[in-house]
C-alpha cells in the first residue's frame, strides 16, 4: 500500500511539473476546436448502439474488448486458420490442369488474350508456357492435383476448391490488402480483425488473432494485412515471432520474481483505477485489462507456443524442426492455438513470386522446392485437425493474392533465363476446408488456357461473404460505423458461394 501511495504522489507531481502555461494555451486551442469537431466526426467516438459512452453505462465489451459475443447465427466454424501464400503460387502448376495449354507451349500468345489487358511485367507479345507439372486425379472427388503436391493429393477429399477466383489488383501489396481487408487501399480492418471484433475470443489468456510468418519476409503489403483499420486496435493480429521467443519480454527479467511482477502490475492497475474514477475515460479500463491479460498471457503463451513437447509422430507428420522458422512449425502452432481457443490464426508464407528471373523464382525448380516446404505441413494440418475433431468447427483457407499467367513472363520484352509466369488477376485457385465446407467440392471452371474463369467465377468479396457466413455472420449486416456511415468487409458486393457450403 505504501508503494502505491508513493507511486500516486509521484504521478501527481510529475503531472504538475509537466503542465505549463504553454500546455494550457495549447490545450485551449486544440480542445475548443475539438469540441466543435466532435459532433462532426461522431463516427469515431460513438458506441455501437449510437449512444455516447458515458463512463457509467459500460458494457462487458468496454471493459474487455475481447469478451466473447454470440454470432448472429450459429455458424459451423468457430475459428479460422488462413494460410496465405504471399507472392501468389501458380495455379497452373498445382491445381488447374490445362492440357490444351501444353499444345500451345512456346507459341506466341494469341492476340485475343492480350487485347485491352495490362500485366505487371509482360510487354508486347509473350510466348505461352505449358504446364510444367504432371497432373493426376486424386481421391474420391477426382480432384486434379499435380506432382508438386504429392502429400496434399491424399487429403483432397477434405477440401473444396475454388478454381475460378479473380481479383482486380495485379501488384502484390494492393492484392494482399484486397484479399485480407476487402480493399486494395490501406485503412480497412482485416478479415481476422472483423471476426475477432464480432466474436471476441474464447481463451481469455491468449490473443484472439495470432499471426505467424515464414519464408524469410513478411508480406509485401506490410503489417496492414492483419491490421485493424478503423476497428479498435485491440482487434489487430498479434504477430508472434517465428523463431526464438514467440513474444518478446514474456520471460521474467532476471532478478525479478513473478510475485514481484504481479505486485507491480496490481499497483499500476490501482493507480489507473483511481485515474479512471477521477476522469472517467473508459480507455483507462481497457488499459487495466490489457495489463491483466499481459500477465495471464505470460503463463499461457510460452506453453502453447512450445512445440517441443509434441510427440515424435506429430513432428514426423508435420515435418517440424523445433527452433527453426518454418511453415511446418507454424502449421503445428496453428493447430495448438486453435485447440486452445484462439479465434483466428493467420499464416503468411513468403516466396511464391515465380517470375522466372532466377532459379528460386522459376516455375519448374524454385516452385517445386517451395511446394515441398508446404505440402507435408498443410496436409498434416488438415489430418491433425481432423483426427482431433477440430476440423468440425475450424475453417482452413489456402491461397495467394492472385494467380499467374499462362504466358511465359518477358519483362522488358526479353526472354527470361528461367521458366516463369507473371501476375494474373483473372483466374486462380484457392481451397477451403473444415467447419461447414462441403468436402470434395470443386467450384469454378476456367477456359482451356486457364486464362480466365468461364463459369462460377468467385470474387474476393464472394469468398469473404462465404467465410463470414460459415462463422455465423450475414456479411451484409455485419457493419461498423465509421466516419458517419456503416462499413462492411465486403463493401457493397459479395455473394455467398452456396455450392461449397455443406
Amino acid at each position, binding site marked *: 500500500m505504501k508503494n502505491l501511495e508513493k507511486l500516486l504522489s509521484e504521478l501527481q507531481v510529475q503531472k504538475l511539473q509537466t503542465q505549463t502555461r504553454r500546455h494550457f494555451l495549447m490545450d485551449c486551442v486544440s480542445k475548443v476546436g475539438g469540441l466543435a469537431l466532435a459532433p462532426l466526426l461522431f463516427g469515431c467516438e460513438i458506441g455501437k448502439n449510437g449512444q455516447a459512452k458515458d463512463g457509467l453505462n459500460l458494457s462487458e465489451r468496454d471493459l474487455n474488448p475481447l469478451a466473447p*459475443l454470440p454470432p448472429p447465427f450459429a455458424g459451423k466454424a468457430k475459428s479460422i486458420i488462413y494460410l496465405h501464400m504471399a507472392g501468389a503460387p501458380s495455379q497452373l502448376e498445382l491445381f488447374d490442369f490445362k492440357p490444351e495449354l501444353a499444345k500451345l507451349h512456346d507459341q506466341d500468345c494469341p492476340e485475343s488474350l492480350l487485347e485491352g489487358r495490362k500485366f505487371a511485367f509482360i510487354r508486347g507479345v509473350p510466348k505461352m508456357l505449358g504446364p510444367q507439372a504432371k497432373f493426376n486425379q486424386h481421391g474420391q472427388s477426382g480432384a486434379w492435383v499435380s506432382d508438386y503436391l*504429392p*502429400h496434399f493429393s491424399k487429403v483432397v477429399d477434405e477440401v473444396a476448391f475454388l478454381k475460378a477466383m479473380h481479383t482486380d489488383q495485379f501488384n502484390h501489396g494492393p492484392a494482399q490488402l484486397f484479399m485480407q481487408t476487402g480493399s486494395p487501399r490501406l485503412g480497412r480492418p482485416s478479415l481476422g480483425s472483423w471476426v475477432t471484433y464480432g466474436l471476441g475470443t474464447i481463451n481469455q489468456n491468449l490473443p484472439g488473432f495470432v499471426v505467424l510468418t515464414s519464408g524469410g519476409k513478411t508480406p509485401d503489403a506490410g503489417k496492414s494485412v492483419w491490421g485493424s483499420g478503423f476497428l479498435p486496435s485491440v482487434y489487430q493480429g498479434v504477430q508472434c515471432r517465428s523463431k526464438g521467443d514467440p513474444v518478446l519480454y514474456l520471460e521474467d527479467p532476471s532478478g525479478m520474481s513473478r510475485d514481484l511482477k504481479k505486485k507491480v502490475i496490481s499497483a499500476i492497475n490501482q493507480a489507473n483505477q483511481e485515474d479512471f474514477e477521477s476522469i472517467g475515460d473508459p480507455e483507462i479500463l481497457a488499459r487495466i485489462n490489457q495489463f491483466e491479460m499481459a500477465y495471464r498471457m505470460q503463463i499461457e503463451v510460452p506453453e502453447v507456443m512450445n512445440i517441443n513437447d509434441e510427440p515424435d509422430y506429430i513432428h514426423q507428420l508435420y515435418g517440424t524442426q523445433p527452433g527453426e522458422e518454418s511453415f511446418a512449425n507454424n502449421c503445428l502452432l496453428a493447430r495448438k492455438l486453435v485447440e486452445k481457443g484462439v479465434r483466428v490464426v493467420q499464416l503468411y508464407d513468403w516466396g511464391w513470386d515465380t517470375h522466372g528471373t532466377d532459379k528460386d523464382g522459376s516455375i519448374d*525448380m524454385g516452385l517445386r522446392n517451395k511446394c515441398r516446404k508446404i505440402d507435408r505441413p498443410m496436409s498434416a494440418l488438415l489430418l491433425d485437425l481432423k483426427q*482431433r475433431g477440430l476440423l468440425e468447427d475450424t475453417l482452413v483457407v489456402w491461397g495467394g493474392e492472385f494467380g499467374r499467367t499462362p504466358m511465359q513472363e518477358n519483362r522488358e520484352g526479353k526472354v527470361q533465363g528461367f521458366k516463369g509466369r507473371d501476375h494474373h488477376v483473372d483466374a486462380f485457385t484457392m481451397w477451403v476446408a473444415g467447419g461447414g465446407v462441403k468436402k470434395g467440392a470443386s467450384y469454378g471452371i476456367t477456359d482451356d488456357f486457364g486464362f480466365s474463369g468461364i463459369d462460377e467465377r468467385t470474387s474476393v468479396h464472394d469468398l469473404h461473404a462465404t467465410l463470414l457466413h460459415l462463422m455465423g455472420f450475414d456479411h451484409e449486416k455485419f457493419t461498423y460505423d465509421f466516419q458517419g456511415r456503416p462499413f462492411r468487409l465486403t463493401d457493397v458486393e459479395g455473394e455467398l458461394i452456396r455450392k461449397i457450403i455443406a
Partner: protein
Amino acid sequence: MIDFVFPLFGRFHPILVHLPIGILLFGVVLVFLSKKRETAHLQSIRLAFLLGGLAGLLSSISGFLQYQYEGFAWDSVQFHFILGLTTTAASFWLYYELRKNAAFPDHFRLKSSALVVLLMFTGHLGGNITHGETYLIEPLPTGIQELLGYSNEEAKGLVLPVQGWEELAYFEQVVQPILNQNCKSCHNPRNKKGDLDLSSYETLLTGGEDGSILTGGNSEASALFSRLILPKDDEDHMPPKEKRQLQKEEIELIKAWIDLGGKTDSKLGDADIHAELLEPFFEKVEIPFYPNVSVAPLSEEQLKELKANGFFAELVEKESSWLMVSCVNFPQFSESDWAKLKIASQQIAFLDLSGTQVTDQILDSIQTLPNLTVLKLNQTAISGEKLGELQSISNLKNLYLNQTQVTLEQLRPLQNHPSLSKVFVFDSPASSEESNASFSFVLEKGNYQLPPLPTDTIVY
C-alpha cells in the same frame, strides 16, 4: 429535326412539378394569414393561384410527354395525370373566383385547403411512380412495416420439390418463377422497359419493342434465351451487368423450355434434363444442429454469474437459449464445481471440459443435461466405464474422448444411441485397437500418417 424537343421537355417534368407545389402552397399560406375582411394579401394570392395554375399546366404537359416517350404504362400514371390536371383546373378556378370578387369568396379557406390536399396527393402519386410504391415504407422499422401490411420478402426464385418435379407445369411453375426473380422488376405492366412485360405468358408472347422474343423450338432465335448468354459487357446482355445474373442452371432451364416448344402445356419431365441440373433449386430441409425444443434463455445475471465463476459461457447464436460452455480458462474444474453449472442445465448444448480434473464420476452429472449436443472430454482422466450413461441424452451428436483412457469395449454401450453421430478417440487405447467392430456412429480414431516419399528430399 425537332423530334427531340418533346422528349426533352418531358424530362423536365420532375423539376417543373415543384413549381406549382411551392407557388400554390405559398398562396394558401397567405390565405390563412389573412383575416376574413383583410385584403392586404389579395393581390399576391391572386398572382400565386394564377402562376400556380400556369406552372401546373406546364407540369401536366411535360408529364404527358414523359409518359409518351419514356415507356410508362397508362395504368401506372393515370391517377397522377388526372389529379394533376384537376389540380391545375382547381387553381385556375380559385384564381377566377378571386378576380371576380374584391374580397375573399365564401369558404375560401376550406377551398384552398382542399387544393392543398389535392396537390399533396397528386405529388405523392408522382413520387410513387418515380421512386416506387414502397419508397416511404422502406425506412420504417420492420415492425411498423408489417403492421401496415408490407412484408419484406423478395421474389424467392425457383424452389422445386425433390420428389415429383417431373410433373410440374414447365412454364407456370418453373420458367415464370425464374422470370419473376430475375426479370420482372423491369419488365412488368407498370414498368415496361423495352416495352416488354414478362409477368405472364400472354404478355411474353406479345414481345417487346424489337418484336417477338420467343420462337418455340428454337432457343437460339429467341431473344428470351439468346440475350442471356451474350457476353456480360454486351449492351444487349440481359439482365444488365450491374443486376443479379441468372445462374447457368436457370439459363439451361429456359433454353430447354424454348426448345421443347415454348408452350404452357409442357411438363418439366418432358424436357431432356437431369436431376443434377435441378440440384440448386431443390428444397432443402435444414435440420438444426442444436435441439429443436424451446427452453427459456438464461438471464443476463445468470450468464454473468457463469462467467464470473471462470467459465467461458456464450450463446451459440444471438436470440438462442443454447449455451456453449468451456473450461478453457478453468483447468482446475472438478466434480465439486458442478454446482456452478446447475443453473444452466437446461441450456447447455455445448460443453467442453477438456483438460480439467474431472473423472468418470462427472458423467453422473453430465447425464442431467438433456439438451447437450456436443461434449468434449479430451485430455481428462475419463476411463470410459460410465459412458453408457450418455445413452440417456437424446440430443448428443458429437463426443470427444481424445487423449483419454477409453477402450473400444467401453464405447459398446453407446451403440445405437438415438442421435450420436461422431465419436473422436484419437490418442486413446481405443484408437490403437485392431478391431472389426462396427458402430452406429462414425468413429474417428486418427493416427494419420503421411509416409515419407522419395521426392521429399529432392532439391532442384
